[in-house]
């Protein structure tokens, strides 16, 4: 049977909490709002442009967003090109009018779109009437430089002789605030169970609060979005080195892959925000409620686990919208596909939207890359399907 072995620090914290139980129980209670579903710890993602967006109009309509973010990286792993294929499904009958912000260079309707997107400086525009359901799909070219830092992973490709090393780093870690104090074990277990259910079902966290007795302290912490990374590193003539790992959720935030050979290395990577699984696994029981009955789990441990899990889920939810979903309550899903490209295409001048062959070529390369990953790993075409 797996047992929780408290560390020295957690034992001390538990003793502190237990020692203060009787006193704390007599203290007035207060409710502390737990992380989730919002606010997000940083402003972006979703990425924004340099202009204010016009007012949106979405009365009685819902919008689900699925995005495939195609990241072209150079020989060092630096992001040099960025395309987003965004598919919005409007549900309900009525008018819609909204803009998606970002450093937009160009936009085209994608296959399956039932309307044409408009383009303005740093905006993709959609307006029309939904007769009940309407699909709005767009291929959007973004300027890579201003938004590369909002991508979920950083790649570093290095060569030492005939050895090529790829390092993938989860770049989503962001500061957050957690609370310490006295809360009932049973309450915390219930909250952990509901958080786990939300995480495993892929649904957004519901707003929740914990009831504390006595003094409550805030402490600074940090949390990452757990990321599922599937990919391959290959060299000409060699067999690709394939890998699949979760970065975060209690596992390391980076991974390193090595391959041997000569020639230009090719990297193909699919990254998607992942649920919190490890951190929310109840020790030695099917649920946290059962676990606290079975084992003596320190309330401080439960509290910490609750905060760190929810902070991670909030961050993962944030990365589901690289471009904004105009419906704040809508379901949003993003998949990030990284692929090495030969050269960084020159940015297309805003005024000259009729050109852009370089970008088109990049899209083709990236789409082909996505197909390869899909074929190799059974990855679905749209992020949400």
């Amino acid at each position, binding site marked *: 049977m797996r047992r929780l072995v408290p560390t020295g620090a957690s034992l001390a914290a538990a003793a502190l909490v237990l020692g203060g139980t009787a006193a704390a129980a007599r203290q007035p209670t207060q409710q502390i709002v737990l992380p989730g579903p919002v606010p997000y710890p940083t402003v972006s993602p979703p990425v924004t442009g340099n202009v204010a967006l*016009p007012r949106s109009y979405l009365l009685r309509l819902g919008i689900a967003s699925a995005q495939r973010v195609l990241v072209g990286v150079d020989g060092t792993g630096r992001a040099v090109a960025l395309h987003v294929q965004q598919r919005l499904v409007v549900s309900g009958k*009525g*008018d819609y009018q909204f803009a998606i912000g970002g450093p937009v260079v160009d*936009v085209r309707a994608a296959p399956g779109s039932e309307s*044409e997107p408009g*383009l*303005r400086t740093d905006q993709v*525009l959609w*307006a*029309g009437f939904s007769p009940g359901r309407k699909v709005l799909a767009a291929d959007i070219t973004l300027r890579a430089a201003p938004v590369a830092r909002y991508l979920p992973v950083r790649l570093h490709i290095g060569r030492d002789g005939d050895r090529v090393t790829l390092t993938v780093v989860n770049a989503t870690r962001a500061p957050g605030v957690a609370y310490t104090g006295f809360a009932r074990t049973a309450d915390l277990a219930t909250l952990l169970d509901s958080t786990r259910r939300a995480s495993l079902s892929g649904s957004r966290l519901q707003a929740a609060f914990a009831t504390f007795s006595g003094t409550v302290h805030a402490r600074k912490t940090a949390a990452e979005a757990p990321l599922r990374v599937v990919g391959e590193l290959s060299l000409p003539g060699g067999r690709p080195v394939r890998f699949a790992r979760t970065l975060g959720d209690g596992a390391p935030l980076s991974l390193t892959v090595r391959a041997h050979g000569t020639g230009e290395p090719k990297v193909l990577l699919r990254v998607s925000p992942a649920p919190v699984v490890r951190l929310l696994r109840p020790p030695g029981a099917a649920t946290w409620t059962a676990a606290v009955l079975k084992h003596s789990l320190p309330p401080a441990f439960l509290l910490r686990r609750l905060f760190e899990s929810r902070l991670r889920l909030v961050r993962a939810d944030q990365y589901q919208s690289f471009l904004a979903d105009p419906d704040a309550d809508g379901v949003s899903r993003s998949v990030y596909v990284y692929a090495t490209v030969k050269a960084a295409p020159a940015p297309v001048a805003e005024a000259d939207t009729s050109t852009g062959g370089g970008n088109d070529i990049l899209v083709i390369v990236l789409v082909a890359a996505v197909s390869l990953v899909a074929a190799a790993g059974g990855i679905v075409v749209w992020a949400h399907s």
Partner: protein
Amino acid sequence: MLAVDVPVTGSPYVAQTIRNGVGLAVDRLDRGGGVTVGSRKYKLKVKLYDNHLSARRAVEDTREALKAGAVAIVTDGTGVPATWQLAEKKGVPIAITYDGATGLVNPVTRPNVFRIAPTSHGIALRYAEYLIPKGMKIGLLHDDSAYGQEGASDLDSAFSENPRSVALRMTLPAGATDLSAQILRARRSGATALLVWGQPSTIAAVLTAARTIGWQVPVYTPPTGSDPFIRQRLADHPDWVDGLTFASGRMTAEVGPAPFQSFESQYEATYGPDKVGVRNSHGQGVVQPPEFPMYSYDFVNLLIAALTHAGSVDPHKVQAALNQVTTQGANGDDRSFNVHNHEGVIDDDIYFARFHDMTYAPVTDDPLSSTLPKIKQTR
């Protein structure tokens, strides 16, 4: 200076709608003290040109307008294929507020041409979407005017994937008053509906020919079906007009009819109601809602916003700014253009209305139209 080039002598009703729409917006601007461009205030002066529905005359008008320093040209669409290049050389935007013909507007090849009016392409697509599921055998009729021929091309394209729904295609002579032979042929083809793309006189002649032989076939038309001319021509047979269905741009937004009614009040206070010249069965005079004046009115407001946004009266800058600004249209919807789209009326905004007792109301068997209220048309 804002140039208005319209067919005052060729199609006075169209000319009047555009002139009045522009005039109303400019009056409103003047009452507010003008438009602030950079650090200066400007007033817009309107200069009227008559293109006589002639492309050659439109070219002359455009040359004169450019010489006079026009910041933009508002037109029904006459001669735009010949005038846009003249204007583009000076960066001057052209706004079409009546003609929906395909090919007039193209942001890539004609970057200075904008339009606020329902497009023929959009109307044809919406008709295909609306009529094909009804299982009708449709007779696609068009007259031999430029408007009719361009519409026929759009209809061919829209119905190309469903050839079984088309009973026949036929060209009618524009201006003919007796189309009984053609309509008899249409009836014999097995058509269960007629979609007539042509001038108001052609539509009136089709209705006359069909009803005279007792054929109660449903007739569908582009926006010309709402032209007062048809009701005037058929005033002695109001039942012949009943059921006539036309497609056009919606006059109200989801926010309700209040914005349009406010615009209509201003319009009527300034110019009086556009009387159709017929009465309904209760003896009430029928008026035409100011749909097309609304488009010209909205363009002027967009132009004003673009002038402010550009901070300059340099036409090139104003033209670029037109791709970046949004204003609230007279119907309550936002009105705008963008880099990829110079159409101010999108296909989704096209609705269908049906006549009864000389006035029309949105149909109830189309998702968009069923959400729209009826605009009062009697005074």
